[in-house]
């Protein structure tokens, strides 16, 4: 109200101001509610259970792979390579924008159909636009003697699995 305006202006700054207090309480609780809404929305929108294929792939018996062969598992998006030095697995997903690369037997290279990135058999980048080489994946032999690959664990390159 207009009559009250001069009286509030004269008040010393230390005096307890009921209106300002309630304004602060109100805005503060709205702020807390807003932050809570953001947190709850984020929690709700991120799924806790995913029905995606397992990261661990059973590639079968190591003897099934011929020497110096590159085998692609399209469903899991990995290459299984048996080189002279041993076995290794490469992630077939292009490091550029996530397309599935393909092994070209005639040229002996891995190439991406989307934007033309090229890699050697060991995942090294020959040609962009991919920023990084194809990562090597953790491989081991299971108790049953099967070659196993964990797609979620990258290892430093040139760590061959010798059997």
């Amino acid at each position: 109200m207009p009559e009250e305006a001069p009286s509030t202006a004269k008040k010393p700054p230390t005096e307890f101001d009921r209106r300002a207090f309630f304004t602060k309480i109100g805005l503060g609780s709205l702020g807390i509610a807003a932050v809570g809404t953001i947190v709850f929305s984020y929690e709700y929108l991120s799924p806790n259970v995913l029905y995606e294929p397992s990261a661990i792939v059973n590639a079968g018996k190591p003897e099934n792979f011929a020497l110096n062969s590159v085998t692609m598992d399209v469903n899991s998006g990995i290459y299984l390579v048996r080189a002279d030095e041993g076995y290794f697995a490469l992630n077939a997903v292009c490091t550029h924008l996530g397309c599935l690369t393909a092994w070209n037997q005639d040229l002996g290279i891995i190439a991406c159909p989307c934007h033309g990135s090229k890699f050697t058999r060991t995942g090294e980048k020959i040609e962009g636009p991919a920023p990084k080489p194809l990562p090597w994946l953790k491989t081991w032999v299971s108790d049953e003697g099967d070659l196993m690959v964990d797609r979620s664990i990258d290892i430093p390159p040139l760590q061959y699995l010798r059997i």
Partner: protein
Amino acid sequence: MPIKADQIVERVRGSRVWRSVFRSGTGSSTLHRALAIQQNIFLHLFATKVRRRMVRFSSTWYLGTLTLGTFLILVVTGILLMLYYHPSVPQAYADMKDLQFVVSSGLFLRNLHRWSAQLMVFLVFAHMFKVFYRGAYRTPREFNWVIGVVLLVITLLLSYTGYLLPWDQLAFWAITVGSNLSSAVPLIGGKIHFLLLGGNQVNANALLRFYVLHCVVLPLAAILFIAVHFWRIRKDGGLYVQQSEPKAPAAAANPVAAKEAK
């Protein structure tokens, strides 16, 4: 005694039922015509009077109106397509094929939706180029330009989310590539990618999320911003026309300068 057509029209417009809906009443005076615009919820976004040169084809090429036209076509055909489409894996692809080969007029509606979508993106760009090169974005219309940029982003997002829905190879890899672009955002890129897809790869969750965005969230946002966009045209002084200020009086006011110029 024969009754003329306009007499019937006047009688209908004067009836109690008509007046309860349209309050402007009978008559065709300037006031009545202005009230007819002002008192209609849809038309009141627009000005009651416009200059003739504002609505000439040459001033805007009707690009904004044509964009709205494609949007309306997309809303109607989109709703019809939703009646046969299930956003689930792998049903989505089969439904798309059914729409093409089994459903009566399905091929027509799907193609109409698809071509209108392409045309809308083209028209939005054409409209923006026209506005830009005409200088129509300048004061006092700068905020309407900003709303236009928001509408451009919504249009592109609608186009992008709709691209996944056929659930074919092209859609899958396009969204794989497109969603990986969001991973490039510093710090929170991975989180955005995860939230957008509802997982780590393009899958059933991603299809459902894109469907909800495409059919509910983005169209509602578009309608809201389109309404503000149109309302701002009136508030910012109508459609922009080049040389709305006559230059001749300035020369006439200063006869000496005019004479020297000759």
